[in-house]
């Protein structure tokens, strides 16, 4: 890093000191960077270089020479991979599927979390502790394990749900058509409601109690206060959790990967963009195309985050 020695000067001479009045003067510059050195080195190795390398890879393509039996070589193809992705129907279908499904699932999940937070806000403290602990259990269970549990609950042979339905004389299948989405959505909702409930609860707790007094004097019922006073005052956290959830959904991978083992015909290898990238890289061995897809997904995620940021900032300020 070439800037290692110079900033010393800047730190002492800089007329702009408003952020840090009289820090450490001359020593500050390189000492500060020295403390950051382990992180910066690692950051270079695990963030900057990989993204750069993935980009350079994405500009290449694996070509087999001759009639396909000769050794393969990597040739430079410019942006060919990217233009191929732009017109790659299955990739974008996967993206759109994930986004639409994510939006619906997140709406349900946040709705339930909000309901639970409001219910907890209205009962005695002792009971709150009990319910909160119980509702948080799914959050504490590792994602892989909770996915495994639901894998069994959805399986036609070992599932107690199927068992109960059989006894009641009906049959339930968890995959195929809309059921696939409901099953996946249920799994993600189960994992997510406890955590989101905690966040929404925290921001409900932060609301000043006086806010409710006026409404109460006017004779408003509790549910009315919840809907007209509490909810409008916590839209900030709802938007924030919604945004993070949606960005997380774009990377949906583990859950559908596992569920594929119960329902390979319902969850295809290109069900979500990450599944497609994984399949492309490790099954097909097409690293260059997979690298390009990774970058496209990163850009889409970035755009989504940015749009969200702009929209919410405008709305909330």
């Amino acid at each position, binding site marked *: 890093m070439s800037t290692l020695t*110079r900033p010393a000067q*800047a*730190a002492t001479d*800089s007329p702009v000191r408003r*952020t840090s009045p009289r*820090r450490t003067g001359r020593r*500050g*510059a390189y*000492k*500060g*960077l*020295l403390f*950051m050195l*382990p*992180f910066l080195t690692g*950051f270079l190795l*695990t*963030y900057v270089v*990989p*993204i750069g*390398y993935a980009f350079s890879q994405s500009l290449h393509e694996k070509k087999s020479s001759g009639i396909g039996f000769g050794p393969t070589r990597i040739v430079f193809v410019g942006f060919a991979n990217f233009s191929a992705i732009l017109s790659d129907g299955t990739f974008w279908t996967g993206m759109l599927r994930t986004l639409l499904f994510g939006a619906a699932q997140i709406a349900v999940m946040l709705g339930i979390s909000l309901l639970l937070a409001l*219910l907890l806000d*209205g*009962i*005695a*403290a002792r*009971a709150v502790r009990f*319910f909160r602990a*119980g*509702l948080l259990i*799914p959050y*504490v*269970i*590792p*994602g*892989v394990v909770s996915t*495994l549990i639901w894998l*069994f609950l959805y399986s036609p042979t*070992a599932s*107690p749900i199927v068992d109960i339905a059989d006894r009641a004389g009906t049959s339930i299948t968890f995959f195929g058509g809309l059921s696939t989405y409901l099953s996946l959505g249920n799994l993600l909702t*189960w994992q997510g409601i406890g955590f989101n409930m*905690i*966040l929404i609860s*925290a921001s*409900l*707790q932060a609301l000043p109690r006086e806010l*409710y007094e006026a409404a109460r004097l006017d004779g408003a019922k*509790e549910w009315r206060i919840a809907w007209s006073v509490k909810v409008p005052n916590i839209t900030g956290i709802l938007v924030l959790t919604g945004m*993070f959830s949606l*960005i997380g959904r*774009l*990377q949906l991978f*583990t859950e559908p990967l*596992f569920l594929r*083992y119960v329902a390979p015909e319902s969850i295809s290898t290109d069900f979500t963009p990450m599944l497609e*990238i994984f399949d492309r890289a490790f099954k097909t061995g097409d*690293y260059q195309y997979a*690298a390009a897809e*990774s970058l496209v997904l990163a850009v889409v*995620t970035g755009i989504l985050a940015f749009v969200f940021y702009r929209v919410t900032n405008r709305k909330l300020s």
Partner: protein
Amino acid sequence: MSSIASGGGARPTRRAVALTTGLLIVFLLYSLAPTWFLLVASTKNQTDLYSTFGLWFSANHLADNFQAIWDYHDGVFGRWIFNSVLYSTVGAAGSTFVSLAAGYGLAKFDFRGRGALFGVIVGASLLPSTLLAFPLYLVFAKIGLTNTVWAVLIPYFINPFGVYLGKVYADTSVPTELMEAARIDGASETRIFFSVALRLVRTGGVTIFMLDFVNIWNNFFLPLFMLNGERSFPVTLGLFSWVQQAQTSRDMNTLVLTGSLLSIVPLAVFMFALQKYWRSGILMGSLK
């Protein structure tokens, strides 16, 4: 949290209380039933798993299942648990140290580009780690690091969100005056960091460690890309390999279920031990 039943003031009607409690119980059951299923299923043998009701016990085969897990591939499951403990403790300890040092440097020293650097770090912390996994794999394969312990540990060490937390903690709990006093006493910057600053940010350090430990324990994605040899798997990846085998060869479902239960135990013990840091940890984690 608060001791005020915030509905308070106007006393809620009995019907409202019943409805509230009823709904909460429904969702409580929804939250708990699947975990209950795991607990029950772990005690069953292969036949009972399919033939008896899933939410209630039949003959207890828990010991047999433990034995079967232990016997499988020369105790590879024990190895997976060991690996998970190793990756989680070493990974989280390394990340905590790197983050605290970087956060301290960022908070307490003035240098050109500090603001920009902080911006980059905050931005990077928003980048989902899943997105980076494949590019990371490409680089690590290139330099021959895949399929080694370092392929998972190095990325765990580097946690931009941890640096962000480290900066916040250094900002709030290391007084600059104290550093000045130590300097006047002739202490070197490293000495000040190790014997003054690190002590003051201890609570923050534990929180970062806890968040990292849980994240690494639960991580599946990075090891899936990086590791090939069964014996280097963490328990999450090991369980996945059992699920895969269950499809092609023999029925391994009791192993998968009992193994899942066992894989939660160390995590539960860890979280119980660090209960105190839990709430702040959850709320901090939410920032991510």
